[in-house]
């Protein structure tokens, strides 16, 4: 199939329609406005419904309601708007409904700005809402991946009955790249026999709810969610490694920053520095074991986490590396995109640090 030029936001909306999403509820915010715009034009062509709600809170609760009836439904926003949706997201997780949520992150905290950012990592992977819940978090770094992962997000949501978050940033939302439309690997999807779509007098009525007032019931739900999270962790982890086999400096980076890190790796290699990149694609579940194995290779001397935040994924990287190698951080907050040169600098510092440290140890041993 011929490649087509697509803007990230529009590709995400088209991908959702191709995945069978027929309902979208949202409230405008830059830099993701082309998503609702595209839905508003094209959902009616497919017999679907686009609705611009009165607020983000209304939009997420409309999404909750539509998901409860068993249809494929999506909402999208950008950072401050996603904050407003957190109550709805924890309700959806508690009610075990399949929903896809897109966050085209922008600078924060507060209203911040409209420039690309990755500072909602904590909110996305830890949950901004209350209670012991998780959302699957998919982090595309190209428009092709944004289109592919958005389609697959609907399948993942349906298989596990869980909210799935597509976490990208303003740059991926705004830029255009050539993509090829392709369908995700077919999965067997469970019947939606829990949906409140009318019993027609043929069965008992279904209830969609996140209130479990009896402690035993709520504890049982928590156990069930825990098992589900374990199953997702077993089945759905995704990552990509680039030139890690002999890397001495290992970058860990996702989304837009991974592209900067990729460029930095190539430039460092030209300068004779063996650099590599580990790119998580699922941020939750985080590819903890894979990163640990990668960082534990004897060739890896130091790990450098690069993010468009002041250090959030850094926590997960440290948990994964578990002290096996020194972990450094390079990043920027508030909507600035780091340059390959900044990442290369940090890699050089990491090597120097290891080198200096390595020299000190024999000196100390001699003193003893």
């Amino acid at each position, binding site marked *: 199939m011929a490649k087509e*030029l697509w803007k990230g936001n529009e590709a995400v909306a088209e991908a959702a329609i191709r995945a069978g999403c027929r309902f979208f509820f949202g409230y405008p915010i830059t830099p993701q406005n082309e998503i609702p715009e595209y839905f508003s034009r094209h959902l009616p062509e497919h017999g679907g419904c686009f609705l611009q709600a009165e607020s983000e809170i209304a939009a997420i609760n409309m999404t909750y309601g539509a998901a409860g009836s068993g249809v494929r439904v999506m909402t999208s926003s950008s950072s401050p708007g996603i904050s407003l949706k957190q109550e709805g997201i924890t309700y959806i997780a508690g009610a075990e409904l399949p929903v896809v949520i897109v966050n085209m992150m922008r600078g924060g905290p507060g209203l911040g700005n*409209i420039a690309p950012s990755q500072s909602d990592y904590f909110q996305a992977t830890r949950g901004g809402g209350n209670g012991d819940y998780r959302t699957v978090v998919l982090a595309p770094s190209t428009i092709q991946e944004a289109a592919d992962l958005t389609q697959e997000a609907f399948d993942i949501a349906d298989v596990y009955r869980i909210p799935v978050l597509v976490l990208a940033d303003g740059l991926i939302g*705004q*830029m255009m*790249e050539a993509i090829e439309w392709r369908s995700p690997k077919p999965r067997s999807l469970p019947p939606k026999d829990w949906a409140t779509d009318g019993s027609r007098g043929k069965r008992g009525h279904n209830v969609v709810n996140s209130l479990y007032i009896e402690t035993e019931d709520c504890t049982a739900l928590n156990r069930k969610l825990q098992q589900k999270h374990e199953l997702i962790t077993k089945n759905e982890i995704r990552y990509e490694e680039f030139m890690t086999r002999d890397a001495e400096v290992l970058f860990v980076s996702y989304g837009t920053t991974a*592209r900067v890190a*990729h460029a930095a790796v190539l430039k460092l290699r030209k300068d004779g520095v063996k650099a590599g990149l580990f790119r998580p694609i699922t941020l939750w579940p985080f590819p903890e074991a894979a990163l640990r194995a990668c960082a534990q290779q004897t060739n890896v001397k130091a790990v450098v986490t690069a993010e468009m935040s002041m250090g959030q994924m850094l926590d997960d990287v440290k948990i994964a590396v578990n002290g096996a190698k020194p972990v450094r951080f390079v990043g920027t907050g508030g909507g600035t995109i780091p340059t390959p040169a900044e990442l290369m600098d940090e890699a050089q510092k990491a090597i120097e640090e290891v080198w200096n440290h390595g020299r000190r140890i024999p000196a100390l041993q001699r003193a003893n």
Partner: protein
Amino acid sequence: MTHEIIISGFGGQGVMAMGKLLAEAGLKEGLNVSWLPSYGPEMRGGTANCSAVLSSEEIISPMVLEPTELIAMNKPSLLRFEPHMAGGGKVFVNSSIVDIPATRKDISAYYVPCLDIAAELGNTKTANMVMLGAYIKATNLLRQKTVREIVSRMFSGTKAALDSINLEALRRGAACVEGEA
């Protein structure tokens, strides 16, 4: 072969459209392409720019830090981006309204009075197409035929009347740099 292009000007001058057109034409010729707009709180009359990358290689990072080519549709754009240009690069200056020359000795400058030419053609909004015609002629980056096809596709339906004037604008722009390339 990698062309990293920054196109910059006032909002309303059609800088975004120029970048998109280059990306579409590049894609049609089998190149890898990316297009990235600046999308700050821009408004008509404010400044806007976009980056386009056309390459025979995989495009790793879409951010253009050292443009190989700069299209400066206004003076602030020339002042802002000329210092960042890669050595040996080409700058295209809208000399109808930019009253200063490019200063770098290690780049080639093309002065295109694109707004005056567009006015002669009877539609000042085609100034961007005049500039694009000059750009394509001077860089030899794309076949003129491909660009004309993309222009005709962009100006179809209710905009079809603009097709012929845009094609003429491209020709006039190319004529500006004839012999210079």
